[in-house]
């Protein structure tokens, strides 16, 4: 019988913790597996002269730019044998959407649940939940829809429901839910895309409504605004969450996740901005200079690279377009690296893409 790397990853997650050596050991095993079974990735590593026989640490594993999830099929298993494919929302570069193939969702789901328990639910096992995002049926290729569905089914106490249906925000139902939660006095959780929050806040403000949710309630936002709502500064955003729902910024958690990953990062509230992101023991980050691929000197800003062992089928190590800086036990996200501003008068790629996209 063929050994399934998913089992190794599940066993690794089940450990209480892992030091660098243990992390390296599994990272290098997965690297060898991916180089062997994923032809485009093998070429990518060959071009860089980084192959299993020379790579000694997870830090040396070549990081694949997220663009590659759009250009290539990064999968060790034939893609028609994969249970699920998650796709990026395709808001940044035209119609081409990045695809992340999952042969099965066991690892993704285990990763999500353990991380969610540790960093969002903390002492609770279940809370009444309101989800401000479409269901999985409405968005079958959205990893966030799956994430939130899992949160609701696994961690949602009785009275949990979706605040969005195919007509959009169910404002009446949401208001009713909030009033009920407020009256009951038990902590609740509300989860949604950052832009869904903006839409809800605007709708509630238009009605002059605000709430004081019970102590211990927590809110989760993720993903930024992506041009789906008005763009507001982070400080103002968390201020609005606090004033509209009566939940202090310390209990407003931002989840940082990507379709290209299988594990999520969380902060411990957003009273101080930008917040520090941390994750479970099967994901690590580093900050690099993307031209040289080397770590930036300590304290300097770099582009965030994730090594997510739960990404056993695609590639573990992903180069984002996000700028970060090390802080405390984790890193702070400083935003997306903007397409470099055209400083001269020659055509720049960013503009070119805007101009040539349909």
């Amino acid at each position, binding site marked *: 019988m063929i050994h399934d790397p998913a089992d190794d990853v599940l066993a690794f997650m089940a450990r209480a913790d892992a030091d660098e050596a243990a992390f390296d050991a599994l990272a290098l095993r997965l690297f060898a597996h991916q180089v062997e079974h994923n032809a*485009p990735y093998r070429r990518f590593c060959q071009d860089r002269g980084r192959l299993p026989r020379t790579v000694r640490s997870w830090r040396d594993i070549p990081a694949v*730019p997220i663009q590659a999830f759009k*250009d290539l099929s990064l999968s060790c298993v034939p893609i028609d044998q994969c249970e699920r494919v998650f796709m990026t929302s395709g808001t940044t570069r035209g119609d081409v959407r990045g695809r992340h193939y999952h042969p099965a969702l066991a690892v993704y789901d285990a990763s999500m649940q353990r991380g969610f328990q540790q960093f969002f639910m903390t002492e609770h096992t279940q809370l009444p939940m309101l989800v401000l995002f479409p269901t999985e049926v409405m968005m079958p290729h959205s990893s966030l829809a799956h994430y939130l569905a899992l949160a609701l089914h696994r961690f949602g106490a009785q009275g949990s429901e979706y605040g969005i249906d195919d007509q959009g925000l169910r404002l009446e139902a949401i208001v009713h839910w909030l009033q009920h939660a407020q009256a009951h006095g038990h902590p609740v959780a509300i989860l949604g895309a950052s832009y869904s929050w903006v839409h809800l806040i605007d709708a509630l403000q238009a009605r002059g409504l605000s709430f004081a949710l019970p102590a211990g309630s927590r809110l989760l936002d993720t993903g930024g605004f992506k041009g789906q709502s008005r763009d507001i500064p982070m400080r103002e955003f968390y201020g609005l969450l606090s004033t509209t729902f009566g939940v202090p910024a310390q209990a407003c958690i931002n989840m940082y996740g990507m379709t290209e990953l299988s594990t999520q990062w969380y902060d411990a509230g957003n009273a101080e901005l930008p917040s520090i992101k941390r994750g479970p023991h099967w994901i690590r980050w580093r900050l690099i200079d993307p031209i040289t691929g080397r770590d930036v000197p300590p304290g300097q800003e770099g*582009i965030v690279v994730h090594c997510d062992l739960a990404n056993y089928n695609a590639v573990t190590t992903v180069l984002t377009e996000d700028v970060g800086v090390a802080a405390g036990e984790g890193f702070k996200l400083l935003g997306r690296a903007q397409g470099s501003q055209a400083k*001269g*008068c*020659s055509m720049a*790629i960013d*503009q070119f893409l805007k101009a040539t996209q349909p």
Partner: protein
Amino acid sequence: MSEQPLRVGYLPGLSEHEVSWETMSLGSEAQPLRVEMPRLTSEQWDALTTRVRRAAREQLKTLPVTDIIRAIDRAVQRWLDPSDPLRQRADSCMARLTGWDAEMVRQGLNATFKTYRAMQLQRFVAEDLDNPKMLDEFQPRPSGGWARALGPDLLVHVWAGNVPGLPLWSLISGLLVKAGSVGKVARAEPLMAGWFAQTLAEVEPRLKDCIAIVWWPGGEVATEQQVLGLADHVLAYGSDATMADLRTRVPVGTPLQLHGHKLSLGLVSRQALGVREAAQCARLAALDVVRHEQMGCYSPQAFYLERGGRVSPREWCDLLAVELSALQQRYPRPTPDLSQALEVSAWIQSRAWSDETQHTTVLGHEEDDWRVLYTEQARELSPSALLRSVEVMAVDDLHQVPSLIEPRRAWLQTVGVATSPERLLDLAASLGQVGVTRVCALGSMTAPQAGWHHDGRFSLLDLVRIIEVDATALMLSDAFAPYRD
């Protein structure tokens, strides 16, 4: 100790303390250059434009064009003088502002100023007007009648980009047609235009009120509408987005000339790929890449090479790599910021992966300040990530190139070529057909000649109206002369 911020602009008739100033930090974080940008009130905009318009009418329009050329030449001579403190300050400020190598900046400014000396300016005028005296007074036309070329009273320039000295091009064009100028500087390089206006005022006091150098934050609708609304003619440079915005703010009926961002490229024919010739071409191509750090509209972002020479296109890439490495020693590249660095790496990946069947080779290692991407199978032209990154593509025949670049028609500008004489004009004709407006020698891409037709337009003729006095007017006037028969 912090340096005194440099004040941007040239504001005749407004005293510095009346104006409010916005401090900004430009250049790199490591070596910031602090500047103060002027922020004018609506009344100040009115006063300034009125003053410039009046001075243009009363002073500039009465000066013969030869006097204007002489004045510009005197100012330019100061700027060409390496011992002039103004020039020395400019050299160092421009290097800090752009992050470019100081020696490269110095040479670039020299090349720019040399094109504005008196003899070059005479050619500049002659390029557009067979009889330059048309700018001074009515001149007889061969077809009968008389004609005069009259520039606008108030020409508003909107500049863009960080290429040092680029605004001088349109500023000087304005002076030659005797237009009063209000020029908005770009945040990326706000200093040169103001300094040059100051020098002009010093060498020719009659010009002191004819130019204003200003700034407002791009997209500030009220200011844009007010200033552009007052203009007789608008000349603007910038991105497609800026151009689209400006277009909505210039009143219908006010002539508007737009110069958007451009794409330029190089071509090397098989005749230029002999063993010695190929090395020479690589040297010239590398210089075009490095000068102005590919920020100029005329800077090459890709090269198409013809197969069939002694040196193959792939081998030529190695020669280009050698030259780029040598230039890296002489003129180090500015340090890219994170988003630029990401763009370079993303560019390489996207080109390398966009089609797995086309074998793409990446030249340039971690420590190199440049990247060359070689593709065996030529594809449509697209921009590089700049910062000394270029794509080299092989074609069987250079005549395939026009169809590969035609999809970018709206953005094409300069093509630097290395080919044999008998092919030159044929090639130029087919390139022109698909949108190219300038064909020059490889190695000369970043130094357009005085009097070039930027983006295929007339520098001076596009700015003037021709006032004709029809021969019939004289004939009829004879009937009313006291000496009539």
